[in-house]
């Protein structure tokens, strides 16, 4: 029997619905290579036991992931990842882009920038390169 490989962290004060948080965290785990095709997502009961959320919401989020072609529900077995969102560019600590960003972040810290400075710079530069309509 496979066990779930990730755990959802539901932030009640974020203003983002539980439904969206589950979708975003599953996708992020896929992007970062923490979830691979064939991995089982935690069952609704497992999620409820870990954080008191509504199991219907968990299942609804999984249905949305299924609609997007990322996972597949197998009757009586659970919901399994079918697609990979990670690539050489995003997965692993040694991905070149990640290393460049890590180098940049190190220089920022040595230069005395605080987290808010880094976040502001990052989102300003991101918005220059990715216009709002591409950020669905």
């Amino acid at each position, binding site marked *: 029997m496979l066990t779930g490989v990730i755990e959802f962290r539901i932030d009640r004060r974020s203003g983002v619905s539980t439904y969206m948080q589950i979708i975003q965290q599953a996708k992020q785990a896929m992007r970062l290579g923490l979830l691979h095709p064939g991995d089982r997502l935690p069952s609704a009961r497992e999620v409820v036991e870990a954080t008191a959320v*509504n199991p*219907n*919401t968990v299942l609804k989020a999984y249905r949305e992931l299924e609609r997007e072609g990322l996972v597949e529900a197998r009757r009586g077995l659970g919901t399994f990842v079918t697609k990979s969102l990670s690539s050489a560019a995003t997965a692993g600590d040694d991905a070149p882009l990640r290393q460049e960003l890590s180098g940049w972040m190190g220089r920022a810290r040595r230069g005395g920038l605080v987290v808010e400075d880094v976040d502001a710079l990052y989102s300003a530069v991101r918005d220059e390169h990715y216009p709002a309509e591409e950020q669905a």
Partner: protein
Amino acid sequence: MTAMTATAVGKRYRTRWAVRDCSFAVPEGKVVALVGPNGAGKSTLLRMAAGLVRPTTGELRTFGTPVDGRIHPDVSFLAQNRSLYRDLTVRELTRAVGAMNDRWSTDRVEEVLGLLAGVDHDAKVGTLSAGARTQVAIALALGRLPRLLLLDEPLSDLDPLARDETLRVIMTDVADHGTTVVMSSHLLSDLREVCDHILLIDDGRVQVDGDIEEVLAEHRVLVGPVADESAVAGTLISATRTERQSTLLLRKAEPTPAGWADTEPDLESLVMGYLRASRDRRSPARRR
């Protein structure tokens, strides 16, 4: 199948209508937040669904059967006063309540009590804290193996740890058995993360009824210049205005006119908007 249906239900106490012309349906498997200010009619509605109070007008059905002065065998009700025999121990009480019910699982009650850290099985019910009594009452409600769980203010006297424990127990029952739950609170924040359906009651009437995500997607908050309000189209629910700026809650809004900022409301601001509108209808003089 619908777990519960209300058709034009009203309840009058002497001259005051506690519930008026309420019609709604709770689909099976939903976890419903029954919210509204104190005195809105939430408890009366739940007590009618449990067969403790007869409606003055209209009809309530649970699983298709009219509630006629007695609770449906598939329904469990947690009353706000948690009526329990105070002189019995938790263990004795479990046996006594079991003897009163045709369908009963002592194992289920013990399983639930085992998950609740603060409940001593051999303590007399009267010596337990209010929170522990609530938890015992919920365990007993689950002992009936209900398909519909009606909970009147289940979280009101629980500390944060007990609250989390209790919600976990209820949500696990939903995950395992597809139980339908209707729980009331005057605090929306209590129920926000565990419910998928909202039933907002104020002044005895249904103000909002629907799947939470769908209800939110149907509404917009528009912020723009007061002078330009005529450019906005849609059903206006409520508005707050300053000298220059209007903040409008709209249902089924048309495309946003230029010069207006448009966001989807969160559940709190949506509920506040409806309650403000309902208050203004009652006392128009207070409208700003």
